[in-house]
């Protein structure tokens, strides 16, 4: 029988590895988009690599969440660090989902539009930063140390909503996403 802790290690390594690769390739693609008028071969490779890595990482994040919850010691998520890991995990999923949505709907030529490239690049790096922060919180929880050093101190505290408030926020969030997807004009593939 394989323990949830072991599966969590596998899932997090898959997620972190892919997301780190995606973050690095997105950053480099953004830099190239600011330098190049027409995309070079390297730019195309970086774009494809970032897309594949982001899809793989996004697939692994839910696995990491569920195995992480199962592997949490004690009675469930009884630590603010775990609480914040959970919140950041879903924010990362949201950001990566939006990044993929943008990349898949607008195509690779979005990088040739400066404002879109900036948005897409910063969004990808923010999503990557979210996942790396989650990883450092894991280190803080299990080993008492974090790569963020004192910067991780605020994440030792959390603001938890009650069930009613959380349900209302969820309804508002669903409504916001549905409105954006259905009411705002759909982007077309940039040619």
């Amino acid at each position: 029988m394989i323990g949830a802790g072991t599966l969590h290690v596998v899932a997090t390594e898959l997620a972190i590895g892919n997301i780190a690769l995606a973050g690095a390739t997105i950053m480099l693609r953004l830099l190239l988009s600011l330098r190049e008028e027409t995309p070079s071969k390297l730019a195309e490779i970086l774009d494809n690599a970032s897309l594949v890595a982001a899809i793989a990482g996004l697939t692994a994040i839910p696995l990491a969440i569920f195995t992480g919850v199962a592997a949490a010691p004690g009675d469930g998520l009884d630590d603010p660090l775990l609480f914040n890991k959970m919140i950041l995990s879903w924010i990362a999923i949201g950001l990566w989902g939006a990044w993929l949505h943008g990349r898949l709907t607008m195509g690779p030529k979005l990088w040739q539009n400066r404002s879109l490239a900036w948005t897409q690049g910063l969004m990808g790096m923010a999503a990557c930063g979210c996942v790396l922060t989650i990883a450092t919180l894991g280190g803080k929880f299990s080993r008492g140390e974090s790569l963020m050093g004192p910067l991780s101190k605020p994440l030792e505290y959390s603001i938890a909503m009650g069930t009613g408030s959380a349900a209302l926020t969820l309804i508002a969030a669903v409504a916001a996403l549905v409105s954006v997807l259905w009411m705002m004009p759909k982007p077309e593939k940039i040619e």
Partner: protein
Amino acid sequence: MRISRILLVMVCTLTLLVSPSLAKPGGQGDADRDFSCADSCHVGESGGQSSATIIIELDRTRVFTGQTISISVKVSGMELSKKGLVGVFLMTPVSNGVGKSIEHSGWTVIQDPNGGSNNFVEKPVLSSSQGATFTWIVRAPSETGMVSIDAAIHHGIDPNPDEIAYQATSGQPLSIEIEPMPDDLPRISADWKPVSNRMIGELMTINLETEDAETVEVEWRVGESGSVQSAEVTQAASGTWSFTLPATTDEANLSWRAMMSNPALEETTPWFTLSSIEPGYDIDEVALFMQSLAFGLLVAAMAIALQRRLVSSSKSPELAKLVSTLPELEDSEPTTPAYGGEMS
């Protein structure tokens, strides 16, 4: 091509700059652990010899089978890591490079120095010269005869450029003769387990289960050196004694002990520790999932809205026209409008 080469060199350089690290400055956590480099540390041949002085002491001179006693391990003179975390093993003497948990030789850990029931515990130590005392409350083996116990220390150093652990054993295992328990010796029941912590501000009523005890008195003190007070003890049932310990207003420890007697014999337990802790972090997991999901969807909605806004702006004919006229506006001379007039 040139850029790709520069990027390749940068990536290779960054990879080489990362040094491998095996250190565990946050400790390994309390656990039932055997003392061996394969299991409990990452010392190997590159490990360091600790300068610690380790002294093992018993709280009494004679030990009977099944008796509850305390074993103190005093450590001092060791190197300290930046966090000052020191781990101590209570174990059998090292044989073939391995010191097994004390429970392998028939002892039962009732309360370890951190309130658990492990043979390896870690505590921060402030001063190397003053050191620290790790006290275990254990139940003696049920078999008579000579047994040996040993202790080992495991810690880091500051600075620790080689990232190795330092360790040492006491060098002088303590030999204890386990004698047969006298008839009718008042004692704590073998099934009874102490409560090790409670919430700050909470009174704690403890039900102590004894055997062959006709009277029980309980003393308590704050920490290990506070003035000793007596607690009122009532007999809840035959062999069950109840007493209440006062609340504390901070994370202070109380320690208490029971003096049991019958007409023939008397017995005093070791000092048990009762810690006061802050209320735990309690959260409704359903609410947490909803909150997390809501934040994720909100962030996605905002990000997608931003993307679509930018796409529609870049495709807006009015905006495109405006942008195309900007250079002309900059270059052109100011002109008077054909039908210009003062605005009233």
